[in-house]
């Protein structure tokens, strides 16, 4: 019985990749561990090894094919006594771009490797553009936008440097710093040991000493080790010194749940950092915001927490082609104008908010969707003005429900727009549990588009 060799998932969030090169031909004998192909993802090129011994019966996907979904059969492996002719009649060749959903087994595997984020299209663009009308735009991933922001600011200011685990020679654990070591050298792109508390403290000291460090946390989960230096040293020194010295620096990295990595690697810390006076907190959703806000963060004379999201890294958005594109902090973006309800979100939550808004529109509910983009300073004025128009509000975030950003928005609306509210504000959040590993439990723990839709229907009494 021939074995299907499937397109591998090379990271927890990989959905598709390019089959760059076959290193075997039909008829070749392979042993377990032999490298049979090179697979390119947006992060890296990886060698793909044979799992079983056998003979390559057929290559189903040609070298150079892009966008091959994870779990698509890419080759057939023959066991002893089988020949290619035997199987050719049995198996219809799978096309490269559509993942087969034929067997229950494959469906299960696919669920296991696909992130819980819905695959919404590019949403309708905001009524308030962040760049002048007529500006040329190009499609860029969030990952590329972040790298460009760092590179541009490092070119402009010799005091800006990047430090963190694997930012240099490895080119970034999530490939955000790709190419920076080559351009700026090891003095300014510094690989640290795995020692978050220590290197964060060193970066704070360097900021006191006049540099503008960018600290990359491989993920913000590891920033917990450095919380004292972030909160007690970076955030408070300007105040404690009566304005004499502060920490002009950026702490950045992926925040929130990735996919199937369990409780210690899946947590949204947005509300934690937003709690601290002295910190600024940015949490972009789109690539243009990632670029414009990161450039502002690097120039800001204060410590900035810059919360990225692994699942968004590979998503593409329009980014303006401009000499020097920045987005000021504390200015929300209205992604979609509407009159029936205000959906307020940020970061990955925007994926659910926008998809919910599209589906709600089909039911005749016209939602206004606001991306906060920054949690500190927080643009409450835009939210209040919107709720004064729609009279209803649903907040969407991935974090835990107690002390959530949505709680704060609700309190602000109660104090500032009480008479305008026609329904209680509903906070859609992650569940109040450590993130489970099992795929079904994880999906259940996260906020989803359906939960946002249900909340909107509740506040609009549908």
């Amino acid at each position, binding site marked *: 019985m021939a074995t299907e060799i499937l397109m591998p998932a090379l990271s927890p969030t990989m959905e598709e990749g390019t089959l760059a090169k076959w290193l075997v031909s039909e008829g070749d004998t392979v042993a377990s561990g032999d490298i049979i192909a090179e697979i390119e993802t947006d992060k890296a090129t990886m060698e793909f090894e044979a799992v079983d011994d056998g003979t390559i019966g057929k290559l189903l996907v040609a070298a150079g094919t892009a966008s091959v979904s994870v779990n698509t059969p890419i080759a057939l492996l023959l066991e002893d006594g089988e020949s290619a002719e035997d199987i050719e009649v049995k198996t219809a060749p799978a096309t490269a771009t559509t993942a087969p959903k034929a067997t229950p087994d494959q469906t299960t595997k696919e669920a296991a490797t696909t992130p819980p984020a819905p695959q919404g299209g590019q949403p309708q663009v905001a009524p308030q553009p962040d760049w002048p009308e007529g500006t040329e735009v190009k499609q860029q991933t969030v990952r590329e936008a972040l790298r460009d922001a760092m590179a541009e600011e490092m070119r402009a200011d010799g005091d800006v440097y990047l430090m963190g685990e694997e930012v240099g020679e490895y080119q970034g654990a999530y490939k955000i710093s790709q190419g920076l070591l080559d351009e700026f050298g090891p003095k300014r792109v510094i690989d640290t040991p795995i020692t978050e508390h220590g290197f964060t*403290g060193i970066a704070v000291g360097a900021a006191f000493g006049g540099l503008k460090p960018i600290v990359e946390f491989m993920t913000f989960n590891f920033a917990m080790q450095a919380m004292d230096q972030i909160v007690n040293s970076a955030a408070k020194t300007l105040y*404690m010194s009566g*304005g004499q010295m502060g920490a002009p620096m950026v702490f950045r990295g992926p925040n929130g749940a990735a996919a199937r990595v369990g409780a210690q690697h899946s947590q949204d810390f947005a509300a934690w950092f937003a709690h601290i006076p002295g910190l600024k907190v940015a949490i972009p959703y789109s690539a243009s915001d990632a670029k414009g806000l990161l450039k502002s963060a690097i120039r800001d004379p204060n410590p900035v927490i810059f919360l990225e999201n692994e699942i968004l890294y590979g998503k593409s958005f329009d980014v303006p082609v401009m000499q020097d594109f920045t987005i000021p902090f504390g200015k929300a973006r209205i992604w979609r104008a509407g009159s029936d309800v205000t959906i307020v979100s940020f970061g990955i939550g925007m994926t659910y908010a926008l998809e919910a808004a599209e589906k709600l529109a089909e039911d005749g509910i016209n939602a206004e969707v606001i991306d906060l983009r920054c949690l500190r300073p927080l643009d409450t004025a835009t939210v209040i003005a919107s709720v004064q128009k729609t009279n209803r509000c649903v907040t969407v975030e991935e974090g835990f429900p107690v002390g959530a950003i949505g709680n704060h928005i609700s309190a602000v609306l109660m104090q500032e727009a009480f008479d305008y509210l026609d329904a209680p504000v509903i906070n859609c959040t992650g569940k109040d549990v450590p993130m489970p590993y099992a795929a079904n439990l994880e999906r259940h723990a996260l906020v989803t588009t359906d939960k946002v839709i249900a909340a909107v229907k509740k506040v609009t009494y549908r």
Partner: protein
Amino acid sequence: MGLIGGFCHLYIGQEAVVVGLEAATEEGDKRVTSYRDHGHMLACGMDPNGVMAELTGRAGGYSKGKGGSMHMFSKEKHFYGGHGIVGAQVPIGAGLAFADKYKENGRVTFTYFGDGAANQGQVYETFNMAALWDLPVVFVIENNQYAMGTAQQRSTSTPDLYTRGAAFGIPGEVVDGMDVLAVKAAGETAVGHCRAGNGPYILEIKTYRYRGHSMSDPAKYRTREEVQKMREERDPIEQVRALLLNGKHASEEDLKSIDKDIKQVVNAAADFSRESPEPDLAELWTDIYAEVV
């Protein structure tokens, strides 16, 4: 009474440490320490009026009254705090040295911490990186033998803190912290090592604090006799006094005159700190964020 609020950690008994090391610095060298910081500030030339007014929480204080005893800074004198979390100043000090190395300006940072802080994990994370990157930082362990109320032998598995850098290849030496000239000499060795680009250096300076950990510490963990013996036999200021008189570098009258001058400075600082107004209520909301230019 009651003019100084909250904690106040006195430095009495440890004076020779900062005086000796400051004598080994050059203009532009940096220093950072813990909350037991008043001695460091005075020794590096900060204005006693500003220090005292900060202790009393007044507008004329170094931090406009918003930092307090544990949090004072002076960019002008290259004094980077005044840090309240035990051990947190150690990576910060290495970071200051990192900035100097980055700027290639030849400066050295003195990073002070106590025998208590020497057991914090971030100290060893910092030792590793400071050695790895050859940072120009002198780690000064002010071993006053008690981490708050815990004697060193009850908190520390090995007695010799100056060897704590050995695992990272950082040279260290132990110094008699009651002898100001010995401290100065050791400081010169250390700073020379750093300035020559050889990376960090550790000085374990054996000293003694006469008063409790803070003003609220009754110091029941040691005997009065122990303190008294140290004051009578090892006092760093008395040692200098004897040195000056025996060597005929100064007369009794000279020293009395110095004492008188210092009392005047202290009284003037006390007056200043009493007369300086409390900070304006509007100050509550300033210095939280630096303005974006």
